[in-house]
């Protein structure tokens, strides 16, 4: 057992576990990197600490100065991670959160002392981003870290997640992760490709574009600046969409190997299986897939216990992923 001076020192160095029991091919190993082991429960702990450290280095935030306010759009994990770091560092955090997220996320934000600003559920994440941008322009004294454009987001993965993966799995051939802000894929992808140019980077896209109906036209679309800044289209080798039903099926299947994960990790595992199916029988491959968080804050969705048709139907209106 180790002893740590702060909860923030517990961020990172997450374990990798062999889940090849779920691999469709005997010649393909699948390993899951368990980001739910981070102290606030998700991969976003790395990003939150990195962005706040960078803001302090740049003088945007001053430790111990009272009444400093941050604002951030989040459907959950970044908000929760930022709330934890802000609580420890003494900052006040306002999280712009779509109204249709699972209630556990709201409760966790409140537990860590964050303030919630509602954004319209029908506009999904896009709406939360827009509202946060509007409010930050209206309140220039607030610090807007803006995870979608903040270079400290992919940097956290370039400096920690990527090196951890290569140290633990030097034989890696494929990296599979979810595409949200694109921070994980850009940071880990760049780190791995610089050292092993042959590694394939696969992005798994949640089905959010299907449920968001708040767009007036296509020009209201959104591409994270991080993705563009890091030449995402060149860095990625494949991008695959995984539907709600398949995500929930694979979230359930993860319990067969003892993993109780969040629903997006079911999508990632479905993507890892699609990736495995592309490997020829006479080749071997090692896929590392990111399990972004655990299942606790999704229990109210009934994803493990309710009829799957009902769960899929609810996923059309509640942000699960």
């Amino acid at each position, binding site marked *: 057992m180790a002893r740590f001076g702060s909860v923030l020192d517990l961020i990172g160095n997450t374990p990798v576990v062999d889940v090849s029991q779920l691999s469709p091919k005997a010649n393909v190993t699948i390993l899951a990197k368990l980001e739910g082991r981070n102290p606030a429960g*998700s991969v*976003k702990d790395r990003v939150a600490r990195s962005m706040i450290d960078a803001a302090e280095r740049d003088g945007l935030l001053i430790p111990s100065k009272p009444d400093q306010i941050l604002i951030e759009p*989040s*459907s*959950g*994990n*970044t908000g929760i991670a930022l709330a934890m770091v802000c609580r420890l560092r003494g900052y006040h955090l306002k999280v712009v959160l779509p109204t249709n997220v699972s209630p556990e996320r709201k409760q966790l934000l409140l537990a860590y002392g964050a303030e919630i600003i509602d954004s319209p559920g029908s506009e*999904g*994440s*896009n709406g*939360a*981003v827009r509202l946060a941008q509007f409010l930050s322009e209206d309140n220039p004294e607030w610090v807007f870290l803006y*995870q*979608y454009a903040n270079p400290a987001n992919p940097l956290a993965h370039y400096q920690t997640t990527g090196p951890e993966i290569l140290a633990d799995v030097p034989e890696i051939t494929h990296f599979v992760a*979810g*595409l*949200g*802000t694109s921070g994980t894929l850009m940071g880990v992808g760049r780190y791995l490709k610089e050292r092993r140019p042959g590694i394939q980077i696969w992005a798994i*896209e*949640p089905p*959010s*574009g*299907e449920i*968001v*109906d708040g*767009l*007036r*036209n*296509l*020009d*209201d*679309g*959104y*591409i*994270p600046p991080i993705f563009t800044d890091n030449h995402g*289209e060149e860095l*990625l*080798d*494949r*991008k*695959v*969409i*995984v*539907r709600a039903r398949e995500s929930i099926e694979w979230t359930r299947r993860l319990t067969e190997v003892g993993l109780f994960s*969040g629903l*997006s990790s079911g999508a990632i595992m479905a993507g890892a299986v*699609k990736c495995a199916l592309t490997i020829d029988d006479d080749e071997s491959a090692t896929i590392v897939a990111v399990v*972004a*968080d655990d299942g606790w804050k999704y229990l109210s969705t009934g994803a493990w216990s309710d009829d799957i048709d009902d769960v899929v139907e609810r996923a059309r209106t509640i942000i699960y*992923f």
Partner: protein
Amino acid sequence: MSAVLRVPTVLRPALGGVSVIAVEGSTVGEVLLKLTATYPAIKGQLLNDDGTLHRFLNVYVNDDDVRYLGGVEASIANDDEITLLPAVAGGVW
């Protein structure tokens, strides 16, 4: 080749309100051009003037993003399912 095209909510008004359309073509570009010819209101929402995909339009053939399969040159086989989706912020962020 004949394939099925799934239309997102945001594009349905320009395509007569339908959510699924039977389409013909051997590449993604061909399919989208034919669609533009049949439904002029969709022009500018699918392809740029230079024939590349609209920046905020993601096109998937059997759930694979075609930007990583050759873009508008990506080939279409019989019974393929093409899905159009707007690029939006999403994921566990």
